[in-house]
């Protein structure tokens, strides 16, 4: 830099001339015309002109004028060169022209900024005026962009429409053009939005609205959905190719509204191909697509979930009806029905997890559907009872047939627990299950592992209180084994040996856990009495203060019957054994004699005698030989009896205790309701009737669905027992009486 040399100041006119020359050269270069590039000296020289003119002492300090000049250069260029070229062209050519001149302009601005750089450093900063770059951009915007954007937008939208209709277009060009729109916003998206996006969205709206009306008429639901999905995909691609990313959500919403929301009802309810048809025909792919499409729309899934619920309910109801119809011919096929329900559950749960992506709405629909038909009765049997019977059969079979795969049993158990969740009378299930469990345990038909497994799972799902009694029962059996060993030790040691040489096993049950059984004052044969006595002696040594209550109705006995042809081992219940042993001392006994000797109830004796003289195996001869037992009959040991088997099991058919179970459960429910009401009132002190009832229902819903009438009756009972009283001001409200 020349420093000490005093120079002539450069006048504005001269300076401008020099600058103009430089600009002309620059223009030619950037327009691609043949022109040698700037040499480094020339480049520096241009900068220096400006520099010198700025630092000159007044009146020659030319920062202001230079700034003006800069703006003027660009303005002239825009107006006189750029704009006319663009306006000459149409359609795609116009876009290209615009794009080209936009790039050129950028280069122009950049170069000029370099020349005039010194202004940026001091003049502009000191005066707070727009920078050179900003001036450049503003110039283009005001003199080119503002004039052409409308037409450009028309062309762009037309091209997009072409692409939508399947033709290829120059995406890179569109990207550049739209980029231009964005950049001309100079910091915000307003230009892009107002000059392009708004129009684009309006056009998109009418485009898809037309498509939707046509497709919905012509296409089936799956076909329509495929088209809709395709459209959405294409539009998203469009964004990634040339639209600004801000447009995506608006565009997607637009397309969705037109293709999915406005036609939702028509689409989903299309006969033969809508939601219910797809469910009916197991079209999982189409259902998955439906989920994907409607998932993004607020509340879009609701009608689908409703259709799902209705469909599952209908399927369930038809299973129930099938079972009802089968039952009229006499057979209640619990196994079949429960299995079918389990399969139905698996099938539609798979739908929920796969097609419907585990969405809570569909879980809820499935649950509601199952709750409707799982609580229906079939031929007088409640679902609770059927499920308990199902489990009973399952475990009995599993215990007999060890070849059964454990994992299938386990998965069936899981299914049972799931089904139980849908049944509202869970306490009823527990009671039936307990009764049947007792029989399984006592007659030896059980596998400890399976029994424990289901109890653990039930406990996990429904709480310890639900399973505590049953667990106690299973534990009793375990303890029983140890006890029996202890008893046998005792017999050996006490030198008493086996009483009368009979092998004798006792199972001690804890009263609270097991269902209640009637005791009877059966007069046992002497041999058995000895057994009882020896066990009693042993037990009293082991424990104090415990009373043994003997339940003969549950015992069984292996007898050898010496028939004329050959001896046969009979496996019978204790009652039956007692009756048979009576014939050890006499050939013939009348009904009356048997009653007197054995002290059984008439009901029981009739049942026993029937099983021994009128059923499949006639160990006793009955006189007269009718089909039923009457009090005047007499019986004789049938020594002529024989069979090819060496061991015969004679089952005593169990008494039907369904009514008793229901009664017991009802009674327990009354106590549970009382307890719940008192608990609620104790903590709330004052509560209106409606709320009391609904809180009570809620508290108890884990176990059963209480009958509102029963709750009312219990409330009245509690009033008469002075636990509660009505509020004198408002008889609809109750107060706790401390």
């Amino acid at each position, binding site marked *: 830099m020349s420093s000490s040399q005093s120079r002539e100041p450069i006048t504005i006119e001269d300076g401008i001339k020099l600058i103009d020359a430089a600009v002309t050269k620059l223009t030619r270069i950037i327009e691609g015309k043949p022109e040698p590039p700037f040499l480094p000296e020339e480049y520096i020289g241009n900068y220096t002109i400006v520099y010198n003119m700025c630092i000159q002492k007044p009146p020659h300090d030319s920062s202001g004028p230079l700034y003006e000049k800069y703006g003027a250069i660009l303005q002239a260029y825009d107006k006189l060169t750029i704009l006319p070229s663009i306006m000459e062209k149409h359609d795609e050519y116009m876009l290209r022209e615009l794009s080209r001149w936009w790039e050129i302009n950028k280069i122009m601005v950049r170069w000029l900024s370099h020349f005039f750089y010194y202004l940026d450093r001091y003049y502009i900063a000191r005066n707070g005026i727009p920078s050179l770059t900003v001036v450049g951009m503003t110039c283009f915007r005001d003199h080119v962009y503002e004039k052409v954007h409308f037409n450009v937008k028309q062309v762009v939208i037309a091209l997009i429409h072409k692409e939508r209709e399947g033709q290829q277009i120059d995406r890179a060009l569109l990207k550049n053009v739209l980029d231009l729109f964005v950049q001309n916003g100079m910091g915000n998206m307003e230009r892009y939005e107002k000059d392009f996006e708004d129009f684009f969205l309006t056009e998109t709206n009418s485009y898809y609205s037309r498509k939707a009306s046509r497709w919905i008429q012509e296409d089936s639901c799956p076909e329509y959905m495929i088209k809709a999905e395709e459209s959405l995909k294409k539009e998203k691609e469009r964004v990634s190719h040339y639209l600004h990313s801000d447009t995506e959500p608006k565009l997607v919403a637009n397309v969705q509204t037109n293709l999915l929301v406005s036609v939702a009802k028509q689409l989903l309810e299309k006969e033969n191909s809508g939601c219910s048809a797809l469910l009916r025909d197991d079209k999982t792919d189409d259902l998955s697509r439906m989920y994907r499409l409607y998932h993004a729309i607020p509340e879009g899934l609701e009608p689908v979930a409703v259709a799902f619920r209705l469909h599952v309910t209908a399927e369930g109801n038809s299973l129930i009806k099938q079972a009802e119809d089968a039952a009229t011919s006499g057979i209640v096929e619990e196994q079949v029905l429960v299995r079918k329900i389990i399969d139905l559950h698996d099938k539609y749960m798979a739908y929920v997890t796969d097609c419907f992506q585990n969405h809570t709405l569909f879980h809820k629909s499935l649950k509601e559907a199952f709750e409707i038909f799982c609580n229906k009765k079939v031929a007088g049997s409640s679902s609770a009872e059927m499920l308990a019977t199902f489990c009973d059969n399952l475990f009995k079979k599993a215990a007999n047939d060890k070849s059964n795969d454990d994992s299938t049993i386990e998965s069936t158990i899981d299914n049972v627990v799931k089904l139980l969740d849908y049944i509202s009378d869970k306490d009823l299930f527990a009671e039936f299950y307990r009764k049947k469990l007792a029989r399984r345990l006592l007659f030896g038909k059980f596998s400890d592992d399976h029994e424990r497994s289901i109890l653990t799972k039930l406990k996990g799902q429904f709480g310890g209180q639900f399973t505590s009694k049953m667990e106690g029962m299973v534990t009793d059996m375990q303890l029983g084994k140890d006890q029996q060993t202890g008893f046998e030790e005792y017999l050996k040691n006490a030198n008493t040996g086996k009483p009368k040489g009979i092998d004798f096993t006792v199972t001690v049950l804890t009263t609270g856990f097991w269902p209640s059984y009637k005791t009877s004052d059966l007069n046992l044969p002497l041999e058995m009495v000895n057994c009882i006595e020896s066990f009693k002696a042993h037990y009293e040594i082991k424990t104090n203060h415990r009373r043994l209550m003997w339940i003969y109705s549950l015992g069984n006995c292996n007898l050898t019957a010496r028939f004329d042809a050959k001896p046969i081992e009979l496996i019978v219940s204790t009652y039956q054994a007692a009756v048979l042993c009576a014939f050890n001392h006499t050939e013939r006994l009348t009904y009356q004699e048997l009653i007197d000797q054995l002290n059984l109830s008439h009901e029981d004796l009739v049942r026993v005698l029937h099983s021994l003289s009128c059923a499949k195996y006639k160990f006793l001869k009955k006189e007269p030989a009718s089909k039923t037992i009457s009090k005047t009959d007499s019986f004789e040991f049938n020594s002529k009896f024989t069979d090819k088997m060496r061991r015969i099991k004679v089952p005593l058919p169990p008494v039907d205790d369904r009514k008793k179970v229901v009664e017991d459960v009802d009674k327990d429910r009354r106590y549970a309701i009382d307890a719940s009401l008192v608990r609620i009132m104790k903590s709330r002190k004052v509560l209106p*009737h*409606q709320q009391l009832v609904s809180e009570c229902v809620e508290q108890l819903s884990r176990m059963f669905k209480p009958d509102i*009438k029963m709750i*009312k009756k219990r409330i*009245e009972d509690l009033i008469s027992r002075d636990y509660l009283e009505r509020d004198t001001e408002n*008889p609809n409200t109750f107060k706790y009486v401390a």
Partner: protein
Amino acid sequence: MHKLSRTNRDKLQQFVSITGASEKSALQALKASDWQIEAAFDVFYSQPQPKSNDPYSDMILAEGVSVLCSELQVEPQDIVTLVLSWHMNAATACEFSKEEFCGGLLALGIDSIGKLQEKLSFMRSELKDEQKFYEIYNFAFGWAKEKGQKSLALDTAIGMWQLLFAEREWPLVNHWCDFLQDRHNKAISKDTWAQLLEFARTVNPMLSNYDAEGAWPYLIDEFVEYLYDKSVVEK
């Protein structure tokens, strides 16, 4: 023993049966009041009584009540006896203890049979008063039931209802009684008794404002069902 005139002997008997007093004290009291029965009562009751072993000696019992009624010229089943008992806060029907009887008369400002008789029409009118009817109605439950029982026997209850709702018209009273005999056949609890009045007062005979979700006792809900069943009311 003086020779008593016929009238005086009657009065003596009357006095004895009403008060349960011994002949001797009865005689004393009557003499002291110059054979005016009403005054004799005053005298009798203001005297300290000799203790007797008979727990009923201080009570007017059924017999006495019927005598009282005939003196007042009313039927024993007349509802006004209920009102009277209410004033006296009597514990049980057809019985008055000394405290109940005297206290009640004092509160009413009555000291003679004549005055009592005059008061009867006033007592009848009290039944027309809403608040008093409410109190009398609720009082009637405790009064009409057997001592030591919690509930009111059905027949007694029906009788009381017929009586009470004759004064205070309730169009459904007959249906209610039919329903009870038809479907219920058990005693009536206190709560049901009390709530029935509420029902009669607030729910119109067409049941248009009956709230099925309300806290009505079970029996009343059943009654409504019965009315629908028998097409007495349209649902």
